[in-house]
């Protein structure tokens, strides 16, 4: 089938072509039919979804509908949803029915969207393949032997398979952009501080940022309009005016300067990937953009810096998973130490354990300066690279990933290989910049992502550039065979 977009559903709900209950039932039906093979949902909240849809239809009849009222979506399972299992893909939280809503969930509820459930992910968002979930690996709808990417693999796979038109997701080192790329979708990670982190279970607090995965830039803009904005519950939330992200979508790109970092196009990059990205850049030139080579000289520090900072923050963030106040507790603990050690060892998976241990090691007595502090210093240099680059260009373009979706079980026993796959995405998290992934081609029937990087709080410019590309190409319209 062809991809169903949020904009289209919104239009049809407004015109009365179908009701929210009807479209919700359609999607629920598709989930029932197709998700066994994909495994993108951890929880489907059918009853609540239908109740929300009914309420949305009433709201519309009363003339109080907003653009997204009645539109079905789903949330990544690290978004706390009041009264609904919020497992983060972990055994540790496999019984955690969140007692409160994330701010983003609250905002979508207020906008009248319908939540169909909770989406699968790498355990606690630590991974790039969505294979580490306690609820099983997510399959890529384009090729079920391949990974959907991660950690927001469930979000991407569900949208790619048209089980939902759009999903929330979170991105700590590429967890929105990489699965969006692997599944042929549009993904956006806004600027750090643009969207509230309240209620999104933290992996690495200074890197985590909420965003969305959709088919189109227009849909992403519609969702960002709902979820962005200052939240007094998040100290790192920015007190800034939020623009209407759809307002600039149709602006022309004449005069736009696109920077191509030479470090992203080294000889190591797969020639087919290089070609796909170069073709996309040519489209931009046709649209009137100018292209300029730039340099991000500290790119080689990105992976180690990211790995240390994320591991250090995660090691502390995960300490609350202790079996005392919520979550999994081991059977018959003999003493408090046993309770901690067994609850955590039984409740957490090996990738999570590895990161906690690396983080603890990097922060332990005698190593702080050599590891953690050094990583923070590298982070400053990496940020400065971008600050300097944006003095010359408006946006930066490059690949999202070094390869297309890899096979299941290919990298999940090699954490270093897995980490190296994030080489193009993690720099933005370190710098806190907004980034997008849009589908720009295929290699052997697998989608290729183009990454667009914007200056601080310039999501609108990114969305505009992505939308313009989608007006002259049809990659975003393609959907996996058989779905």
């Amino acid at each position: 089938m062809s991809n169903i977009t949020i904009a289209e559903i919104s239009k049809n709900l407004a015109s009365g072509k179908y009701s929210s209950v009807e479209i919700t039932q359609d999607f629920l039906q598709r989930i029932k039919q197709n998700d066994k093979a994909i495994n993108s949902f951890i929880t489907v909240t059918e009853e609540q979804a239908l109740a929300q849809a009914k309420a949305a239809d009433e709201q519309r009849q009363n003339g109080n509908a907003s653009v997204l009222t009645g539109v079905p979506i789903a949330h990544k399972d690290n978004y706390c949803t009041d009264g609904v299992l919020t497992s983060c893909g972990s055994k540790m939280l496999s019984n955690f029915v969140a007692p409160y809503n994330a701010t983003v969930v609250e905002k979508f509820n207020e906008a009248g969207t319908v939540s169909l459930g909770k989406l699968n992910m790498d355990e606690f968002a630590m991974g790039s393949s969505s294979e580490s979930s306690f609820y099983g690996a997510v399959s890529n709808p384009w090729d079920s032997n391949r990974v959907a990417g991660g950690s927001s693999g469930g979000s991407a796979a569900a949208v790619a398979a048209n089980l939902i038109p759009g999903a929330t997701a979170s991105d700590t080192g590429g967890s929105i952009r990489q699965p969006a790329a692997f599944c042929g979708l549009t993904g956006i990670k806004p600027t750090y501080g643009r969207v509230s982190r309240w209620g999104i279970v933290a992996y690495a607090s200074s890197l985590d940022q909420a965003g969305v995965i959709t088919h189109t830039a227009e849909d992403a803009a519609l969702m960002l309009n709902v979820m962005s904005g200052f939240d007094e519950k998040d100290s790192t939330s920015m007190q800034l005016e939020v623009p209407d992200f759809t307002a600039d979508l149709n602006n022309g790109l004449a005069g736009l300067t696109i920077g191509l970092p030479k470090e992203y196009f080294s000889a190591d990059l797969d020639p087919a990937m290089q070609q796909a990205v170069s073709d996309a850049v040519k489209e931009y030139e046709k649209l009137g953009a100018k292209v300029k080579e730039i340099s991000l000289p500290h790119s080689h520090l990105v992976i180690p810096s990211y790995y240390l900072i994320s591991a250090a923050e995660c090691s502390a963030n995960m300490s609350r998973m202790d079996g005392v106040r919520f979550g999994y507790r081991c059977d018959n603990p003999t003493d408090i130490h046993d309770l901690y050690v067994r609850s955590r060892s039984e409740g957490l998976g090996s990738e999570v354990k590895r990161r906690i241990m690396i983080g603890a090691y990097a922060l332990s007595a005698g190593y702080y300066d050599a590891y953690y502090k050094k990583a923070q210093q590298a982070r400053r240099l990496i940020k400065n690279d971008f600050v300097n680059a944006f003095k010359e260009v408006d946006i930066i373009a490059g690949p999202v990933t070094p390869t297309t979706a890899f096979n299941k079980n290919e990298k999940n026993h090699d954490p270093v290989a897995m980490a190296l796959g994030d080489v193009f995405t993690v720099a933005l998290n370190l710098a806190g910049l907004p980034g997008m992934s849009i589908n720009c081609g295929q290699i052997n029937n697998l989608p290729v992502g183009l990454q667009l990087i914007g200056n601080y709080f310039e999501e609108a410019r990114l969305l505009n550039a992505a939308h313009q590309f989608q007006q002259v190409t049809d990659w975003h319209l393609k959907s996996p065979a058989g779905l």
Partner: protein
Amino acid sequence: MQWEVVIGLEIHVQLATKTKIFSGSSTAYGADANTQADVVDLGMPGVLPVFNKEALQMAVKFGLAIDAEIHHKSVFDRKNYFYPDSPKGYQTTQLYYPTVGMGHIEIELEDGSTKRINVTRAHLEEDAGKSVHEGFGSSSGIDLNRAGTPLIEIVSEPELRSAKEAAAYFRKMHSIVTYLGICDGDLSQGSMRCDCNVSLRPKGQEEFGTRAEIKNVNSFRNVERAIDAEIERQMDILEDGGTIVQETRLYDADKNETRSMRSKEEENDYRYFPCPDLLPVLIDEDYIEAVRQTLPELPDAKRQRYISEQGLSAIDAGVLSANRSLADYFETVAETINDYKLAANWVQGDVSAALNRLEVSIEELAVSAEQLAYILKLIKDNTLNNGGAKEVFNALLEGKGDDTVACIDTLVDQLGLKQVSDTGAIEAIVDEVLANNTKLVESYLATPEDKRAKAIGPFIGQVRKAAKGVNPQVVMEVLKKKLSEL
């Protein structure tokens, strides 16, 4: 060998904010378990901290009160350790960039002299919850109401040289934080807790000896006793040629001894790092100046003023200025009657005695400052003599009056305390006393001239027995005159 004692204190002060340092939960004491612990205090997945404005202001206030450097940038760090009363598995504190830097206070020593003690730093942090070990069988119960209560931890330099000095330092800090109104000062509720670092070194040696840290001492008396017990323990070991192990110890007040809690090897590797959920706290000179404007007169300044402007003794001034409520009471009385010395005598004397006897605070005392001032005014205008005043004061304590000043006039009338100064009336009483006590008169007359001043005493007693409110000066004059005429 002669040993020198080296003591440093770390005092945890609970700040008197309405809400917790990082959440909107109440900090009120005594609520049912876990009813004042919201998602932030429970360390639920996904929650985030936001820093309490008032906690910052209180910390800065304290810093200014001890003449400390106030840092324009302070940063919260995570201190990682697992304990059931620490819900996040880390404590949010300030290791590298505390809000308050180096400052100092003066402590008064027993001989009336003062000693300056330097304060290394004071940092903001969150309190832990409480573990209850009784009543849950083989389990402990965890109450997280206290978790997240704002604290400042005040770290002294190791400049205290005896348990007495340490207790004086703790008292002085108590006095300062209660003066500032940043802590309720209620030690019985754990509002101030003290960790004592104690070591000994041979007199004259520069280098510090190995220290032991006594955790969580929570009364003035116990600070002194715990440290003395620890000094004794260490001295015994050292005198026997042994060595002190660096460790954390607990004080057992019942046995009056300290016991080992954990050794240094068992200490955690706390893995401090800046909390990524909080941003640096930045304040400027304007902010600091504005806080400075809110500072009350502090105990040292008050004490100095009592001595230099009002002529009180150093001891009186010290006692009266140590507690803000007492000082406020004292000053109300003194200023109303415009007589600091008379007010000081009464507040130091009868008022303090009553507080001790009745075990009440000055706020709870049945005699208000206004009432005492009125009683003293009656002394000054000769309406009451000293004994009469005490009688009215005690009557009020016994609840015979109410909280008005007017009730004092009624009591004076009811108790017949109005002083008789009329010479004629007193002469009549004296005549009657002399007539009824012929034996006394005889023995008086038998007394040699130079010792008669003393022998006059019993007559005064008899006169006052006959009529309470007589003016003692007039009685004396009349007695002298009448006796000399015999």
